[in-house]
């Protein structure tokens, strides 16, 4: 409760500073609208914003689920096979040198103007952090546990299933926490490049028409959504995956 109190207090201070800035400088509302105006727009345009939020949320959640699954499978495959490590890992790291942003137009071309390209974009943004965090944890299994399992007559596959994967789940959880924060970025990039729905599209549309208050309202909804998503993922990880640490 104390933590919640401090979050609310900090938000109030930020809002007051924002309002004071608007009042003192007298900037036009299409440059920087005050928090009161943004709150008003948030309320009056709630149906519009909610409609676009649902679209973005679907993209983010689908991308998160696919990225986590694919990242998890990749990490296990890499940890299990030295050959896979030799062949795939350099490529994986090289792929990170390509800005995902730059891929957005081509993804739109390949996967269309709709939700598909945004889901793929989200997947690409979170795939590496999930794979990397889980893979590192899989490679850090205490050798003594592996030795014990070998002495008990376990095959490498069973050591993977009963020792290495369970021991690495906290690492997978840290990857998922990062993914929860990055995933909305992926969806928004996808929407900016080409979409007719979603919060990213709404923000682009609103700022293009100098409806800066609507842009800010959508931005705040996106930020709140991201914070909530992170909180849910964090809670879930704590209740399940982290217990193995």
């Amino acid at each position, binding site marked *: 409760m104390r933590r919640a109190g401090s979050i609310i207090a900090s938000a109030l201070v930020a809002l007051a500073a924002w309002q004071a800035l608007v009042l003192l400088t007298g900037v036009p509302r299409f440059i920087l609208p005050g928090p009161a105006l943004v709150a008003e727009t948030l309320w009056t345009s709630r149906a519009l914003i909610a409609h676009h939020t649902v679209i973005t949320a679907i993209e983010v959640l689908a991308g998160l689920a696919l990225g986590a699954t694919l990242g998890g499978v990749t990490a296990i495959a890499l940890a299990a096979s030295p050959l896979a490590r030799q062949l795939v890992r350099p490529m994986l790291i090289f792929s990170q040198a390509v800005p995902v942003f730059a891929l957005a137009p081509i993804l739109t071309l390949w996967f269309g103007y709709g939700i598909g390209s945004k889901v793929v974009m989200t997947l690409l943004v979170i795939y590496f952090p999930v794979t990397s965090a889980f893979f590192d944890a899989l490679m850090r299994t205490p050798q003594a546990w592996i030795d014990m*399992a*070998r002495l008990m007559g376990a095959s490498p596959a069973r050591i993977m299933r009963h020792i290495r994967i369970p021991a690495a789940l906290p690492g997978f959880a840290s990857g998922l926490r990062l993914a929860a924060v990055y995933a909305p970025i992926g969806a928004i990039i996808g929407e900016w490049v080409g979409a007719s729905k979603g919060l990213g599209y709404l923000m682009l549309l609103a700022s293009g028409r100098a409806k800066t208050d609507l842009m800010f309202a959508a931005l705040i909804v996106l930020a709140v959504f991201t914070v909530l998503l992170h909180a849910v993922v964090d809670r879930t990880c704590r209740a399940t995956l982290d217990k193995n640490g």
Partner: protein
Amino acid sequence: MTAPGILLEGSVAIDGEPLIPPIRLTAAAGRWTCLLGASGVGKSTILRLISGIADEATLNGTLNATDGVPLAGRVALMAQSDLLLPWLTVTQNVTLGARLRGTVPDARRAADLLNDVGLSAQADQSPATLSGGQRQRAALARTLMEDRPIVLLDEPFSALDARTRAQVQDLTAQLLAGKTVLMVTHDPAEAARLSDAILILGPDSLRARPAPPGAPPRPVDDTQTLSAQGALLAELRADP
């Protein structure tokens, strides 16, 4: 099943660097042999070689069970760290071997062994809730569950306080009776209490020393055991 003895003859190197000079080490069948020596002299490496998990070390020589049957699959190892998996319950840890081999765990036997080590009440708890002595007893139950004729102990009691250590030593000696035990230890007191035979591994040689009279585990206050302990410590201190 009668437990075979172990005979290791040869020298050991790690990455081409000599670690252990040519030695002839025997652990008598069904008896408890202690291997003493300074840190870094290669005691644990010997246990890892016998376990078949010493990928890092090469033995230039021979290693056999005295009954001529290969050692593989007949050795269990219990280390200083209890190696309990924190995400499993005590019972699941004890039956880990079966799960790792893809067979059905013998729940009845696990319950009996947990009863033997005095952990029936903790069977469904997480290892995190156990004390140091309880954790080591759970590890003992897991080792016994494997039912291997040869049991290697790598300082399994060294992290315990003196009182708990004596209790767990007695329990271990009782439950491992009839198996061939080779225990690595730093502690002359432990060697004097528990051994049928005592070996000291120095940088140049492996020396056999007589065990005190009487069947192990000997009482903690037995005079001859205490004097053997003193003699062992004096000899260990004389090593470079």
